[in-house]
């Protein structure tokens, strides 16, 4: 325990974006987005091309916003030194590769080194992250021998290794089988009490079961933000969809067009 860990926070929400604009290639993928996310699990929903990945990349500070502002943990991640803020972030990109000669442990260890963790803490933190991602039995296997879902879990372990206060997961459930999905939701629930987790997904059921908050995006704009219950209440029987959430989803997206 250090003084920094127990110090009271001086910001209202972990992530705050005002009039955010981010370019992806020539397109303005995130356009005039206002968003405020606190502790909890936030599911970002939206059709393909809604700007979910670009938004997460911008929150992970790998893309520079071309307009508006972002505040992470009360600080603006501009300027030349992104290091202090990045140490508080865990990021799982939508697609990520790995060096084929790495084992799961080496992969997470290398990421821990890149995250500038103190050398003495790395081995234990790596083991704990691997345990949390449920890869303990495969920790010393080469990544190239693992299935797609297991590689995804190695990615999750990598994101957790530095105990981030902001955890950004881009499509984390792709390639997971139903049992692993349930386990993943359990992990999200265990994080939701002290971490600001942002999960992008296009699967409505992911949101229904694990998220405390839903953010609906369309064409780079915010369409809706609220609890899964409010999203479900927005739909009526006449809307397309098999569950109340899906009906709410199509109702809100239909209204926005």
């Amino acid at each position, binding site marked *: 325990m250090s003084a920094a860990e127990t110090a009271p926070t001086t910001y209202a929400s972990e992530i705050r974006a005002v009039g955010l604009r981010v370019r992806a290639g020539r397109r303005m993928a995130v356009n005039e987005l206002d968003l405020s996310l606190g502790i909890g699990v936030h599911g970002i929903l939206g059709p393909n091309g809604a700007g979910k990945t670009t938004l997460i990349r911008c929150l992970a500070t790998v893309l520079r916003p071309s307009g508006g502002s972002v505040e992470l943990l009360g600080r603006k991640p501009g300027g030349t030194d*992104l290091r202090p803020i990045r140490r508080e972030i865990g990021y799982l990109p939508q697609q*990520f590769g790995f060096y084929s000669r790495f084992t799961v442990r080496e992969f997470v260890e290398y990421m821990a080194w890149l995250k500038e963790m103190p050398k003495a803490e790395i081995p234990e933190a790596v083991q704990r992250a691997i345990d949390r991602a449920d890869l303990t039995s495969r920790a010393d296997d080469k990544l190239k021998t693992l299935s797609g879902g297991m590689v995804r879990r190695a990615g999750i372990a990598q994101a957790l290794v530095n105990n981030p206060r902001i955890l950004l997961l881009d499509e984390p459930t792709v390639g997971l089988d139903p049992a692993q999905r349930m386990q993943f939701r359990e992990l999200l629930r265990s994080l939701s009490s002290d971490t600001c987790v942002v999960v992008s997904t296009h699967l409505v059921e992911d949101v229904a079961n694990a998220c405390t908050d839903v953010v609906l995006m369309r064409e780079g704009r915010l369409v809706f933000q609220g609890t899964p219950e409010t999203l479900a209440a927005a739909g009526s029987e006449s809307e397309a969809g098999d569950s109340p959430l899906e009906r709410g989803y199509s109702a809100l997206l239909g209204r926005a067009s």
Partner: protein
Amino acid sequence: MSHVSGDLVRRYANGDKGIPADQVWALEAHMETCASCRQLLASHADGIAPLLDTVWAGLTPAEVPAKRRRLSTWITPAGFPWIGMTILIAAIAMLLDALTVLDTSFVLLVAPVAPMLGVALAWNKNADPMYELVAGSPRAGLELVLRRTVGVLVVMIPALFLAGLPGRVSPALWLLPSLAFTVGALVLGLLIGVTRASVVLAGVWLLVVAGPSLAEQNVPAVLHPASLPYWALIIVGCVAVLGLRADSFSRLLR
């Protein structure tokens, strides 16, 4: 010492909000010093057992296998084949020097651009599978790029020096140009990506300098000792630009 009543302990363990604050305070103060009451409390604490287990799991040191490989932090893990390839180029140039009787040395013509090709991998979107993970980490940035660059140069420069020994190629002639190309590729890489920049610079070198020099069978003017100050100037300029734009390497490059 009077102990806490069993009923009060039960209500406390169940999180009863109805206990007056002063009683809670007295109860907690008593618990700190009384083992038998703590035991009584523990007997009611089935509901929080899972939480305790989680806390203990976090506190217990995880088992770490004793035997581990050391991770290379100076050379990109994906960079070894690439470095091998550039060393091979140096070796081929050395062979050509030995087999042909030209006035210009192949090693001398290859040496200025060979280390740059190795460095192209230091910050490469396509050849580095972990590029996005690395670029988003705190360590990403000019420092990591330079670290990986140094890792390449430490291997490449001795290799080229050895390749030049049979043909008596002085390292003094190619050392500054090769450093200039290396930092030049990093600067140009800010605009078009480091790999593309390396390919462009190597292409220009081969077409404008190395090709004509081979055709005319003379040492190109830019590699005469008299041009060394200009190479030094290029290095200084490029390093200055790198210093000013250092933060760009911590974002996703094109």
